């Protein structure tokens, strides 16, 4: 009887191990299939025109230059806003807020904002900026929408890395007679620099592929434009529009755009990982 029970336990264990291995193979298989499609469809369309010509009408040659430049400008402005606000907010949570009720509320709402559906951010920025403040779609509105998505990421990582620093660092600054803000700026931020950069990279990875918040804010622009006060072309929106057309050449451009975004996101994440590892080593 006992041996039969033991056999049953052994068999079910083997089945369990096989199940776990199989799920891993399935998961990796599916994800490999997605990467394969992305590479096989995207790499073929890569050429110099992609970076030098603007989005075409169906049937004529063109590239993604206006969308790439638009995306870069919108993302850069969004990151600038997100880094300023996020680092200050994270610093407040780590250095000043402590365990106060207000700090707990901000922390909770930051977590909510971190996982809030991005399309809602787009809707709200549309409501405030596009519909009421400015009156038309613009690159600025797109940048604000993306900044709202990036801020919680930066805030969270800033708070986390500042809290990891030993309090003796803070004390040493104060003991030297430095005001708090100089202690924070010259000692705390500098000590946490790797973590802060990582937070920025993760936030960039998060927003660079976001499509939903740009649909009602930056909209799109068929032509090359550096004017952020007007509708602006951006990669995600161009991918979305072109993927849903019936034209093969536009669909190919959509795949190339998707490949470019995926490469940018993966690169940002990998650099962030390398920085984290270097920090741990030193």
């Amino acid at each position: 009887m006992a041996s039969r029970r033991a056999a049953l336990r052994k068999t079910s264990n083997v089945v369990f191990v096989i199940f776990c291995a199989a799920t891993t193979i399935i998961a990796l298989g599916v994800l490999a299939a997605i990467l394969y499609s992305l590479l096989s469809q995207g790499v073929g369309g890569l050429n110099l025109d992609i970076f030098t010509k603007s989005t075409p009408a169906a049937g004529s040659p063109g590239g993604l230059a206006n969308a790439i430049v638009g995306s870069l400008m919108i993302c850069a402005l969004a990151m600038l806003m997100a880094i300023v606000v996020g680092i200050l907010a994270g610093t407040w949570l780590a250095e000043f807020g402590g365990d106060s009720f207000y700090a707990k509320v901000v922390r909770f709402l930051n977590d909510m904002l971190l996982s809030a559906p991005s399309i809602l951010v787009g809707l709200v920025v549309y409501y405030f900026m596009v519909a009421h403040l400015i009156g038309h779609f613009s690159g600025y509105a797109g940048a604000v929408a993306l900044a709202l998505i990036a801020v919680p990421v930066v805030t969270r990582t800033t708070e986390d890395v500042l809290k990891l620093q030993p309090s003796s660092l803070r004390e040493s600054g104060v003991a030297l007679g430095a005001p708090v803000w100089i202690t924070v700026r010259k000692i705390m931020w500098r000590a946490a620099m790797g973590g802060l950069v990582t937070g920025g990279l993760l936030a960039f990875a998060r927003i660079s592929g976001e499509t939903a918040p740009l649909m009602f804010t930056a909209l799109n622009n068929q032509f090359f434009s550096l004017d952020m006060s007007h509708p602006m072309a951006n990669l995600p929106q161009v991918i979305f529009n072109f993927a849903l057309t019936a034209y093969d050449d536009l669909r190919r451009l959509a795949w190339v755009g998707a490949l470019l975004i995926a490469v940018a996101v993966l690169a940002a994440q990998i650099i962030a990982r390398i920085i984290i590892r270097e920090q741990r080593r030193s």
Partner: protein
Amino acid sequence: MTTAVESVVRRAPREAAFDPIFKALCFAAATMLLAALGGILVALTIGGWPALHRFGFSFFTVTTWNPVTDVYGAAGPIAGTIVTSVLALAMALPLAFGVSVFLVEFAPRAIRRPVAIAVELLAGIPSIVYGMWGLFVFAPFFAQHVQLPIAMAATPGSLLEKLTAGVPNGANIFTASVILAIMILPYMASVFRELMLTVPPQLRESAYGMGATAMEVVWQVLLPYVRKSAIGAVMLGLGRALGETMAVTFIIGNSHGLPKSLFDSGSTLASTIANEFAEATSDMHTSALIALGLVLFLITFAVLAMARALLGVQRTY
């Protein structure tokens, strides 16, 4: 004498005058986060109010969505959102669990790290990429190799036939759920893995020492230890699935009304907004779409708050 005393009087550091300003700046930045979330709630409520006021409670029960007659009911998108998210969770949960257990317990040391990193990197791929893959690769494959054979095999009038009725083009509730599942899988797997790594090694070792099999260790030692936060992680995954926009918009088929079968086209709250907002035909149409946003906000907020509460418990261990 007096000079000596004066020399130990502590003067405030020269640039200390800026301290309160710096503190106020940081405080203002933190308050902006609060204002952002408050702003979302206010804008969605004010923007959606005309529609909610006009249609009242029937907004949530009526399935009509007609921009021509200006009559809007959210029952279809609400049902679509819940069905796709729950289906996606049902598919992703066992897979994510299996992957994380494999990585923590069984995987050879050499592949453990690379696979874990691969899974984490894939969690960051933008949803529009998943959407394109779903539309151009998965949907045609599914239509030809799953949907058509089932449609041929199902006897008319049978339950199978009712469940799988629909246009065989691969753009439906079920394929949208599969894509959602693929998207939340790497995310949930990496959270599960991190949770299981927090279990003290002594617990695991003592269980093995008593002769427990790996399966018993996982089910009776690891899982009970991380139970609450694991549920929190599942809720986080659900929250992501509920609000996911682009991937679903690509592949769900975008038709209004309640989905009649698994393979019927449908819509979700987010996909309806994404599809129609930029081309809304009337003020009431815009308002109805913003009201959908409010519903989505309230649902995800509830789910995420619950996730946060459950995950928060773990931190105090």
